[in-house]
């Protein structure tokens, strides 16, 4: 815009010309416009304030909802992974307390309580695949099969005389495969077992497995020899005789 007195360049809101000092607000139309715009501005401000006031509660509620949705997502993630968080924390604790945990496991193993050892290892989430417990790897792979075999035998033979047994023939299948897996795992790793720092415990476990078969399945030394030399069919027939027919 140009000053209508000196022709100098002036801003739209300048009230005085910066070049000649002429009052630029003296015209009636300018004043009328200014008033009109001020009124409009007030009106718009009032309208905006009214809209904000009217919807404030809605805006706050929406804001809370967004925060809560984020909270639900975080809580779901924590809930879904709580098991792993806890397991990981226990694993880290077992690494931190290596000496204590190792001593406790040795205590179970020395006592011949191999299921106790397995329970301790699982409860403390001891990671046999990574340092400092990686020397347990072979012992643990045999122990896993041993524990499965023990539990299958327990499930198959300890029940009340009036028990409501669900499919006893499944016990036969489970027993046959659990026994097979344990002894096969042992035989397959025989050369590694002899090199293993825990070989005495692995052999101890094998001897205890023999005793379990003798005490609860009636397989003494000769019986076991005959059983393991037999076919799947004869093994199954033997176990059916012990677990179902009697």
């Amino acid at each position, binding site marked *: 815009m140009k000053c209508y007195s000196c022709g100098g360049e002036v801003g739209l809101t300048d009230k005085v010309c910066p070049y000649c000092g002429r009052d630029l607000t003296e015209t009636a139309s300018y004043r009328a416009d200014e008033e009109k715009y001020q009124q409009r501005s007030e009106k718009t401000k009032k309208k905006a304030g009214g809209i904000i006031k009217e*919807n404030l*509660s*809605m805006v706050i*509620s*929406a804001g*809370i*909802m967004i925060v*809560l*949705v984020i*909270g*639900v997502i975080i*809580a*779901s993630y*924590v*809930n879904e992974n*709580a*098991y792993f*968080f*806890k*397991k990981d924390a*226990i694993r880290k604790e077992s690494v931190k307390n290596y000496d204590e945990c190792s001593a406790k496991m040795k205590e179970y193993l020395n*006592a*011949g*309580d191999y*299921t*106790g*050892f*397995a*329970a*301790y*290892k*699982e*409860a*403390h989430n001891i990671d046999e695949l990574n340092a400092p417990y990686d020397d347990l790897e072979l012992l643990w792979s045999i122990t896993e099969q041993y524990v499965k075999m*023990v*539990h299958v*035998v*327990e*499930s*198959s*033979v*300890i*029940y*009340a*005389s*009036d*028990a*409501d*047994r*669900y499919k006893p023939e499944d016990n036969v299948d489970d027993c046959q495969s659990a026994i097979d897996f344990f002894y096969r795992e042992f035989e397959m790793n025989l050369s590694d077992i002899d090199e293993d720092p825990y070989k005495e415990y692995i052999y101890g476990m094998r*001897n*205890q497995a023999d*005793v*379990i078969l*003798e*005490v*609860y*399945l*009636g397989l*003494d030394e000769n019986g076991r020899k005959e059983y393991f030399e037999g076919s799947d069919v004869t093994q199954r027939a033997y176990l059916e005789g012990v677990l179902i027919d009697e």
Partner: protein
Amino acid sequence: MNKKVFYPISIVVNILLVIAIVVLLKNAGHKMKFEYVDTERISQESMRTSFEKGCYGQAVLASYPVRGGAEIAKEYEEYYRLGEYTELKFFKEVYAKEGNADMLTSCDKRLSELREEMPDYATLFDKIDQSTDKAIRE
């Protein structure tokens, strides 16, 4: 109109979201407290069912981590202890056959402790004893 409809809905949704957060965090806390033994309620239910049906040996699988010091839920503690009793009773015969006198003594001691700690289950302990004795084949 929109405000009249959406505002009450948003309040209800917010309340539901708060409930969801509380439930999720409570579950997460429970899981963290009792670790893996308690994460699968089904195993505890199956343990209870096994005892009710007289299939004592079946309950041992779910209960055996308690022997390694796993934390357990108080409400199911007795079932875990019954499972522990069954396992020790099973192994008592094995240790006797092995000639492992120390473990035999230790088993006897713990079996007596469990019986003393849970006198209400005396009949069930007797039934477990009978079942284990019956299971011996030699």
